[in-house]
């Protein structure tokens, strides 16, 4: 697994075009190449909300509202989860990063 810079609130994640997804008996599986992972409910919620337009901060806001959890926790967990998917090449960062944000990596 490649070393992956952690995602930041300002970054916009996009699903990789070469990432597969399957909705099997209510469970969402995503994969790329030889890697495939089963997402839990929260992971699936985040993945479904990656639309190439919403920033991690915006996705975290939705997550916090959906599950009634503190916004900061939603952002931390969301970024950690998306960073893991990015390390697998399943998502990448796109769009503007905050000025001086070292994690910016537009595609």
């Amino acid at each position, binding site marked *: 697994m490649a070393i992956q810079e952690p995602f930041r609130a300002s970054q916009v994640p996009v699903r990789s075009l070469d990432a597969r997804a*399957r909705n099997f008996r209510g469970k969402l599986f995503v994969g790329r190449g030889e890697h495939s992972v089963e997402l839990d409910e929260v992971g699936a919620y985040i993945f479904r909300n990656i639309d190439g337009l919403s920033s991690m901060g915006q996705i975290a806001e939705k997550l916090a509202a959906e599950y009634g959890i503190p916004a900061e926790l939603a952002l931390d967990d969301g970024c950690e989860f998306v960073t893991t998917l990015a390390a697998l090449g399943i998502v990448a960062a796109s769009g503007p990063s905050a000025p001086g944000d070292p994690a910016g990596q537009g595609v």
Partner: protein
Amino acid sequence: MSMTSPPRERESVAAGRAYLTAAGLIPPDVCAAFLTGSVARGWSNPGSDYDIYVVSEGLLRNAGPGILMPLDPDIVPVHVGYADGRRWEIKYWTDGQIQQVLDKVSAACFEVGETGYSLNAVEELLIERVMTCLPIIGAEWVTARREDVRKSAYREFLVTRSLGFADKAAESALGQLAARDLHSAVLSAHLAMRHTVDGLLESLECYGTKTGKWRARRVRDAAPAVLSYEQYWSMETMRDLDPDDPGDWVRRTISWCRATSMQIEI
């Protein structure tokens, strides 16, 4: 076929019954006879054949040539005739053969990871036709077999196969795009779109993937919530493909395939 069926269906069924009776094509141990294909689905045109499946307890003897099948008995006799300016094709299945076909797509087979390829094209078409036919004789038999299909993993096998094909075609498209083989990438992306649409339709129990000429009809009939007919037809005809930038169409099409496959529940 009830008296509340649309007039077109009643007329088609009556014509089928009349043809079978007049030609002496109903075996004494018949379980069911049903009209299939475009006539049954309401998609026929003046040049369409009438396709009828007859199911009996035993194999019809002396019926002439047939289709060799990996079943026991290993032949499906076929009668072809012409009447009223139409071509009539009657396939004679046994009840046991149909049970064998259903066994190949049982839930147990799916659980152990067997693939949909265990059905050949004729068998796959058989099940589609049971699901969409107009009964002439033995409506109860048809109802019971449809219930058997719903309890089987036929749907899961087909959806899994179509989405697998879609993934492979998408990978090809992206590889060709990376290699700047743009026209090949367009064709691969188009294939990926078609496989994804097939998977979507199959997930809605709208079968018939093997007869691609009816894909537009199937989309219109199934009316998937995640795909409007207009969007489908735009992709099918590559309406917004820019000849100066085909890569953009490829990327948008693959993106749609990926997003849609995620919404198809297996």
